[in-house]
């Protein structure tokens, strides 16, 4: 089972906690909003990703299991 991160751009308020906790995969743009690399996550990074998603003050960072496309 592979996992991927996704940002809800409506909920995100650029707190930047995610980039602090997962700099390997998340950078901040010039306005402080996260830019994700879109890669799959596994092993140790997956644990850091979980922590980053839990730490988001607006629950805007979502760790999702890969599922087949809906159509």
């Amino acid at each position: 089972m592979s996992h991927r991160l996704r940002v809800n751009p409506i909920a995100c308020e650029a707190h930047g906690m995610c980039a602090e906790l997962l700099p390997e995969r998340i950078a901040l743009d010039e306005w402080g909003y996260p830019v994700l690399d879109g890669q799959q996550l596994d092993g140790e990074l997956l644990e850091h990703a979980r922590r980053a998603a839990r730490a988001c003050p607006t629950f805007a960072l979502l760790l999702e299991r890969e599922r087949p496309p809906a159509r």
Partner: protein
Amino acid sequence: MSTQLAYAPAPSAVAPPAGLPRLLTGIAAHAAMSLEHHEAVHGPLPLTGGRRPALAFDLVEELDRAGLRGRGGAGFPTAAKLRAVAAAGGRPVVLANVGEGEPASRKDRTLARMLPHLVLDGAELAARALGARELIVAVCETARTGADTLALAISERERRHRGAPRTRLLGVPDRFVASQESALVSLANGAPALPAFTPPRPFERGVGGHPTLVANAETLAHVALIARHGASWFRELGSPAEPGSALVTLSGPVARPGVYEIARGGSLSGLMQAAGGLTLPAAGVLLGGYGGAWIAGAHLESLRLSDERLAPFGASLGAGVVAVLSAHACPVRELARLTRWLAGQSAGQCGPCVHGLDALAGGFEAIAAGAPRGNGEQRMRQLAALVRARGACAHPDGVARMALSALAAFPTELAEHARHGPCERCARSPELPLARA
């Protein structure tokens, strides 16, 4: 129900239009077509007779064979959309989108005002095919006569069409992103008309939590005619990859700007001839919509309005906007003004859109003023990359596409402004329509 009937038009069907126009057949200059007149022109809805009229053929199959794609801008195959809604389970809702947030587009409100029954036919057929619980017609609040005409047309039909789903009008605010499909679903659910974070997409969970088909007005008008005359008739115009006709809104320095019906793949020069020709030389054309792409004037003579031929320019026919800019106007000034307006049309929900579109507009403004910070063009490319795919809806993606295409279409004008500042054309009054008429 499972019997696969070959396509068979109703016995009383009127002969299909040969060539063009199709949708615009019988359109009058100042009055909406009544239901009676509409049926005299196109024939009655292709339903079985009796006490419970029904579709006598598989509409989705027919649309699939026709190769109809959505005409609201995204160009998604209509049959696949219907199938996705049907597969989501439950009793769906059909939402006819006459919102037309594009300020340079008038085709959907022209249909609503002049040919309301064509749109309502398509909506009713889709609703019947899906067994929909409700039909919602979303129409822009400022397109007053469109809303009034639709309301009248709906009441005209109520007496005639037994078994048709309950139909209601939904007034859409006059805002660019308000007629985006998830925004319409929010509005129908009693929330503000703002794009939502998806998935779930409307076809999975939409109005009232039910799977919802959101279909553009022109798309539904084509459905009305494909249901009557069949897929092979639809494919008589256009190319195998891009069949059928399309409505376009031609604006700019032509003798008769307005809504025209063309065969997909038709030439731009043919369209301009039909509109009485250019009244001034053209600097370029913005195609598809304001989130579409610019093509420089030098290419216009040989341009064909097919997605295949437009792809090298990063353009598509999209929502049918053909906005010609005259050589009388300053493209750089127009770009700065257009991008600033588009930035103001952001729903303001997503950070990268709010900040990125403001910065893109600021970038064009700085170039126009002759004061870009550093390399103006490089900065625009960087900003375009920063906003793409980072909003809840595709608004920032459209602005990025438009901005990048402008760099390719007007390199000389942009470079001259970056170096020397405003030109003599900058002082002239702007051409691109932004306020809605």
